């Protein structure tokens, strides 16, 4: 059973987040270990396994990057490659972002600068998701794969920005 089937949804990059969240809750209502506290050991183990699977499926589909990669895997496309031939324009921009991030600490209002930075990344992620949606709709997996790699870059950048935020908070 693939993750889309778990929630009885068609295999697609576009998912209705409210629908999947609702089905996720309904499934957890019947498989969650809390419902089996007084059951024999075997049933409790089974419940934990099922609840784990439902969580895994939900986590994967909820997030656009992991959802996209999962769609490629369903097509038999290897997604753990180290293929890094990215378009140079994108790479240049990533380098600029990174420099900008490194300089935020020295700014007079680092929190404001970081916030603006994060918002920009988030906006860019959103745009990328729109593109991905179109590419998946047209079964253009090759282009989608390229964009998912870009997505990974942005996610990593976003994480770094968040850890900088923590660093700033702690000093």
């Amino acid at each position: 059973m693939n993750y889309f089937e778990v929630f009885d949804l068609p295999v697609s990059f576009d998912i209705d987040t409210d629908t999947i969240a609702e089905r996720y809750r309904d499934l957890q209502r019947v498989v969650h270990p809390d419902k089996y506290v007084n059951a024999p050991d075997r049933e409790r183990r089974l419940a934990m396994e099922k609840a784990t699977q439902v969580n895994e499926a939900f986590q994967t589909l909820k997030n656009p990057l992991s959802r996209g990669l999962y769609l490629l895997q369903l097509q038999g496309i290897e997604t753990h490659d180290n293929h890094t031939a990215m378009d140079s324009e994108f790479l240049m921009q990533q380098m600029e972002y990174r420099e900008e991030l490194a300089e935020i600490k020295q700014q007079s209002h680092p929190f404001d600068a970081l916030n603006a930075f994060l918002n920009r990344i988030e906006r860019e992620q959103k745009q990328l998701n729109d593109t991905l949606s179109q590419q998946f709709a047209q079964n253009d997996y090759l282009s989608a794969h390229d964009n998912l790699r870009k997505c990974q870059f942005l996610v990593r950048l976003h994480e770094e920005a968040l850890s900088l935020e923590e660093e700033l908070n702690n000093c």
Partner: protein
Amino acid sequence: MPLLQISEPGKSAVPHQHNLAAGIDLGTTNSLVASIRSGIAETLPDIEGHHLLPSIVHYTERASTQVRSYDDDERANTQVRPYDDEIIVGNAAKSFANQDPLNTIASVKRLLGRGLKDLKTLGTRLPYEFVENEGQGMPMIRTVAGLKSPVQVSADILKVLKKRAEKTLGGELTGVVITVPAYFDDAQRQATKDAATLADLNVLRLLNEPTAAAVAYGLDKGAEGIHAIYDLGGGTFDISILRLYHGVFEVMATAGDSALGGDDIDRVIAQWIMQQAHIANDAEHHQIRELLDVARTAKETLSTQNTAPLNIKLDDGIQWQGKLTHSQFNELIDPLIQKTISPCRRALRDARLTVADINEVVMVGGATRMPRVREKIGEFFQRPPHIDIDPDKVVAIGAAIQADILAGNKPDDDMLLLDVIPLSLGIETMGGLVEKIIPRNTTIPVAKAQEFTTFKDGQTAMAIHVVQGERELVLDCRSLARFELRGIPPMVAASARIRVTFQVDADGLLSVFATEETTGVHSEITVKPSYGLQDTDIERMLKDSLEHVQEDVATRTLREQQVEADRVINALRAALKADGHHLLKHHEFLEISAALDELLRVKQGNHVQTIKKAIEHLDEITQSYAQRRMDTAIHHAMTGHKVDEFTQEN
């Protein structure tokens, strides 16, 4: 189809049975126990009417494992009875804190699941004598009654609450829900569970404190939407962002500091007094205790007054007098309040939300009684926080509600709590770096598998170090467990494929499994908690304590096996009644019924092994039935949807 007689004569049907259950808030400063009585969740008082049990344990020279507190009414009746053969807990122990600080353990929660190294970073010196436990990371406290681990001290508190609940409710507890700070790591959770085992409690669930508060609050108000639960207790701080929707409490993110709380505020004030009164930094234990008491009183006074008088008796007998004003107080505590803001910010980020998305802010924990905390947090979230449920009791009340449901008293209730893992789990890789396996704020239960390979030709063992935390270096994270995978078949370097699965259960506890994939060899793993008790320790301590109360160990094992048999019988009967005829073929039904009858029969006897075998047999033959029941439930959950949607559309 013939009707089969499967119910035991004289016993009422399963659904009518009421199981006694309780919620326990094992707090840094105070602990509470709550239960549902006549449909209402309430905290249970001791005979003097106190609901809060100060989390203080006093050990005396000839202390047995007999634990005493104001919960014992014989104490009230027999007036002057010496304390010298007892462990004293709660208010009764409080009076010893100044006279005998080394044998009076307060705030033990801060020490749970911690190593000696961590304790040193907990701020001002703790007024106890620590002893490193050879071979293990867990520190022991030296008392006149011998070395005590933080787990044992916590168990002594739990025993009093257990006794209180059983006396009030009039029977043995079938199970309890114990709350822990959401930000507790695996070692701290495990230590809490160990303490419960030592206190002979059946833990239905470890529940995160903010989630418990949300349950108490949400069910009370029938609230929906996104809530921020700000929980500043005596020694821990948590912020949780929860979504409440149709009875489902979904934790979206949690953050905090498991070593920050009201105690730190007392400490900051005490340090300020020391400066003002020119008290040296190496003051005696009892003086530090007194200072902390004065500080706490001042803090409480300042919640309602503008200044707090300070009176300290110095070592040379001179009385020092001073005062603490509101503005001085604010200046002292603002940095600590500020320290809680950054986790709030991080939790919002992790939940991908902003302050504007929060519908309600709920305050939990005694330290949120301080008006300054409410003011500052209200400012941050841009709305006044809710304070309408007693911040000291709300967690225990929520735990009691969950305990009642888990104990099976409300089979039709569809409340569900979906919690997360608070800190990322990772393993040590080359160069002392951490590779994250399960990121923080992942909904539990969760499992992740990771593949490893051998480094050398013929290598048959491999060491794995599991850590918890967000930092990149192993040194900056908490060490959870180290274990060795043994029995890897000898192969050329890098050709073995060892798949290690990390499973975090609904209590947030980790377990690890491993298989060598090319040969299918199951490797034996013993997870050695870095700062915990070994299972053998727990067994030994349990045995010790049982010997003291003169209960026969064999009787106990038999009793446990019978309880397990009852659980299997009750669950299976309910299942058969619900869908047995539906999901089982006739011969399967007959076979299961026969095995059930057999278990009922052997359960009456006193042969542990026979009961165990009968349970195992029943478990074996119901395997596919359990699977079918689960699949049917899932199918119903999904098709129920379609019907709903269809009706809505029309």
